[in-house]
């Protein structure tokens, strides 16, 4: 069953039609990648799914509920978390305060503590730096914090927007490693990446976006060996 289903979605930025009618789905347990060049509309799609911007037409279904017009702040408690592009951690707050805000919609203090422990296990560095002001950490650490913060809501589906952007190769590997572990622990992942090679390596399926349209879709493995894709996105 599709956990997330997007049908004929169109989105406008002012007069510019950024998304020109796209459809895709994410099944429970999958890692699905959206790849494409800068400006293809990847981030816009994620923002529309989590209600930061409104759709012009089309529908978004999450676990069969229509969330196309649901207010942004009501999405997370339905079980969908979003790690935004550029990390967007609360830079003036401490690591721990950031993580607690990730669990903002949850009520049970004991459950929140338990999730916090699992996040610390997954990101030992966050534990070491729990009282540090987030803005003073490196980009890679902030990315970990953004991911940890999203996991604090205990999501069924996690959307990740360019998690490897601007990171050193060591951190990139670490981040992709963590995404695989998050997926292995049962969280469904929708991944947006410019680093197509990395994304296709860990994804089950992928969609290729070009200027607001899906131009290709399929198993990640086969896209990785597709000549046109290799030429356009893998730099070969």
């Amino acid at each position, binding site marked *: 069953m599709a956990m997330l289903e997007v049908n004929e979605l169109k989105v406008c930025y002012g007069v510019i039609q950024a998304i020109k009618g796209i459809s895709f789905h994410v099944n429970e347990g999958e890692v699905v990648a959206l790849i494409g060049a800068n400006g293809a509309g990847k981030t816009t799609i994620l923002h529309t799914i989590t209600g930061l911007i409104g759709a012009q037409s089309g529908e978004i279904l999450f676990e069969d509920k229509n969330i196309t017009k649901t207010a942004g702040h009501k999405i997370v*408690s339905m079980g969908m978390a979003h790690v935004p592009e550029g990390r967007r951690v609360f*830079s*003036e*707050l401490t690591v721990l305060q950031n993580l607690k*805000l990730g669990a903002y919609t949850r009520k049970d203090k004991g459950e929140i503590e338990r999730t916090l422990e699992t996040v610390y296990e997954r990101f030992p560095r966050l534990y070491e730096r729990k009282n540090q002001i987030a803005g003073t950490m490196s980009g890679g650490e902030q990315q970990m914090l953004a991911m940890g913060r999203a996991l604090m809501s205990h999501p069924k589906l996690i959307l990740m927007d360019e998690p490897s952007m601007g990171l050193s190769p060591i951190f990139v590997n670490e981040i992709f490693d963590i995404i695989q572990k998050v997926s292995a622990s049962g969280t469904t992942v929708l991944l947006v990446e410019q680093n197509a090679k990395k994304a296709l390596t860990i994804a089950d399926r992928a969609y290729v976006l070009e200027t607001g349209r899906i131009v290709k879709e399929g198993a990640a493995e086969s896209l990785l060996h597709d000549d046109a894709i290799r030429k356009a996105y893998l730099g070969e």
Partner: protein
Amino acid sequence: MRFLASLINGISLGSVYAIIALGYTMVYGIAKMLNFAHGDVIMVGAYAAFVMLNQIGLPVYVAIPVSMVVCTVLGLVIERFAYRPLRKAASPLAVLITAIGVSYLLQNLALLIFGANTRSFSSVVHLKSLRLFDGGIIITGEMIVNAVVCVAIMAGLTLFVNKTKQGQAMRAVSEDKGAAQLMGINANGTIALTFAIGAALAAVAGVLMCSSYPALTPYTGAMPGIKAFVAAVFGGIGSIPGAFIGGILLGVIEVLGKSYISSQLGDAIVFSVLIIVLLVKPTGILGKNIQEKV
């Protein structure tokens, strides 16, 4: 002796400025707008208290909470109908100009209802004055109450912002509204809450100010509102301790300036200090350096 007396007077006046400045700075910190109608909310709070105390004859412990409620509702209404529709406007000037419009609207409504006559506000403070140095320095009950209430409000707000979930949500919205929404925080609700708190503080400030300086007119809030704005910028706009320090300093400077330099130039001195501070430290005393994020 004269210096000490002026200093105490200044701290008392500054405490009122600080309470107003706290409202200014919180709203700016979260909604990123200058609510120029904030001073006039003070006036509304003072009139509400005046009607209940002097015309209906209700006790102080009823009048103050009710005038806080009146101002809170007013703050919420202003936010909902005047400012929120413009939050996504192309220019941030739109909401600024609206705030100035709301300011005049409130003044003119007060003029219509209460007339232009100066009303004599009877103090809500019934403490005896302290006489020190054989009457060389007199500390009135109002002065003590002003300072105590101001410190209590600033401490309460600091605790609220740092220790409560709602307070953390405010800081999150203040820094990044979109990211805050992704956490499940209702940004509009949080902004409305901030306006409500700011307006309730304005009511307190109005009652305290008119208890110390009993002349109440529809324009009573305008000048203190602008000075409190100066105080907030002076201390570093958006910063709660900054508004507190800025307010107290501004009150002290104003009273000392009036006492030692010229009683007519008091306001000019206040604004000159602002210009100097902004030339030396554009972000104010406790202001953050604005970082450009990549």
